């Protein structure tokens, strides 16, 4: 069964409080080489049968309208069984 993966990240220009806290913790633990950590979300969809253009279009719509809030987040990648597709 094919798996479609959608990656959503907080917008680069906005504060990511979770990422900031994690960066701070890593630095405290001696991992200062990681200058910055940002935390996003990964959604995995399994579909029956083939991933057609229509299925992909539906995933893109859901990713834009429900999975992410375009005010605060970006859909950064959509892949099918590990193969990236064009996001826009």
């Amino acid at each position: 069964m094919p798996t479609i993966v959608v990656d959503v990240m907080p917008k680069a220009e906005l504060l990511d409080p979770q990422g900031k806290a994690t960066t701070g913790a890593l630095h405290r633990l001696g991992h200062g080489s990681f200058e910055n950590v940002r935390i996003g979300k990964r959604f995995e969809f399994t579909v029956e049968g083939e991933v057609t253009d229509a299925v992909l279009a539906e995933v893109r719509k859901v990713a834009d309208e429900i999975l992410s809030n375009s005010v605060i987040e970006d859909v950064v990648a959509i892949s099918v069984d590990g193969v990236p597709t064009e996001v826009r």
Partner: protein
Amino acid sequence: MSARIGVITFPGSLDDRDAQRAVRHVGAEPVALWHGTHDLQGVDAIILPGGFSYGDYLRPGAIAAFSPIMTEVIDAANKGMPVLGICNGFQMLVESHLLPGGLIRNAHQQFIRRDQRLVVENASTAWTNTFEAGQEIIIPLKNGDGGYIANDETLKQLEGEGLIAFRYAGLNPNGSLNDIAGLSNERGNVVGLMPHPEHAIEPGFGPNTPAAMRSGVDGLGFFESALNAITARV
């Protein structure tokens, strides 16, 4: 006949009963509404209460914003019905695009509860017309995801058109841009804010004020304002 103000309960709403009580306190009739229906039961105004609908999964307010009843709420709001979103309700209003911008985790990463000073910036909305512009009020605040953000263009518009209803005074509790605590839409019928006016309606149970402990009743003005707005609409 007294005004009928609907309070919608979502899975995970916490302050729906408090909001109903506040409505009763100003002499209106609270009407309990359910997220899973399409029925506003002919109410004159709507409150989206605080809480943690759907456990804040996906994003706070996001799943609730797609509830069946929100179709009718959005429609009624666009026709001018007074709608107030408190805390999680404010998050639903931004998620359903009735108000611009977004709310993210508090900048300091912690849940915060405090008796918060606010400045009423816009006193001509359906929910603020009993206040004076510039008036300072004290309203309890309690949230984990209250950081208001928007892009520069939106912020400029909010500032320029007087759409910032409330600003935090004394201390910005969550990193909100421009100290924004609450917003209004252009028409003034839709208002959302992070603090909880329904928790400041009765002496003995409200926020602490310089006058006395738990004496704050500044929240009453929100619900009295709605009564004015409802009367003006009829």
